[in-house]
């Protein structure tokens, strides 16, 4: 329950603050490490923050008696995921083929960074396809 304390002592607000706080600290730690030229310390702070945050994000709803997430959260997550994938698809279909055509014609050059972004987007869609297949199998079993 969001505002009701349970035996586990965690509320929805505390859960959210904890997860976002830990991930935020990890990101800040990484940035500070980069600025101070301490990449190992920064990376360590990032990994601890993100992994502990992720463990709490996924674990707390399972071990807590309180309702930390419910169907409305899942629906919002589904919608946001669908929107994000839609944006990536529209941008991908709208930009990638013309970009490669222009590159082939010598009008533009696909830099390493842009190539990396295209590869990343492609990998994301590949992962999405695999996850969609798994979900379809599970829901039509």
């Amino acid at each position, binding site marked *: *329950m*969001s*505002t*009701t304390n349970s035996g586990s002592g965690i509320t*929805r607000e505390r859960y959210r603050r904890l997860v976002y706080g830990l991930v935020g600290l990890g990101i800040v730690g990484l940035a500070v490490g980069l600025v101070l030229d301490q990449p190992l310390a920064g990376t360590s702070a990032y990994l601890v923050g993100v992994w502990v945050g992720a463990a709490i994000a996924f674990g707390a709803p399972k071990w807590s008696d309180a*309702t*930390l*997430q*419910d*169907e*409305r*959260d899942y629906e919002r997550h589904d919608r946001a995921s669908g929107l994000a994938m839609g944006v990536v698809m529209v941008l991908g279909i709208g930009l990638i083929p013309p970009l490669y055509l222009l590159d082939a014609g010598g009008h533009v050059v696909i830099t390493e960074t842009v190539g990396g972004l295209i590869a990343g987007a492609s990998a994301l869609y590949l992962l999405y396809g695999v996850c969609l297949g798994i979900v379809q199998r599970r829901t039509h079993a």
Partner: protein
Amino acid sequence: MRNDLAERRADEGSSQGELAEAVGVTRQTINAIERDRYDPSLELAFELAAHFGCHIEDIFHPALD
């Protein structure tokens, strides 16, 4: 979808948090349903109907306007 959840809850004398706890969702979800900003799943609608001892259609009505 329209609903009279707020009235039923007021008649019962329970808070949004208490109703949420009884049906296993967050207080924010009960608040969103009462303000017609969220249509619950069929499962939650059944939970709410069972809680108030009525049918789903007694609580939820299609918005015809």
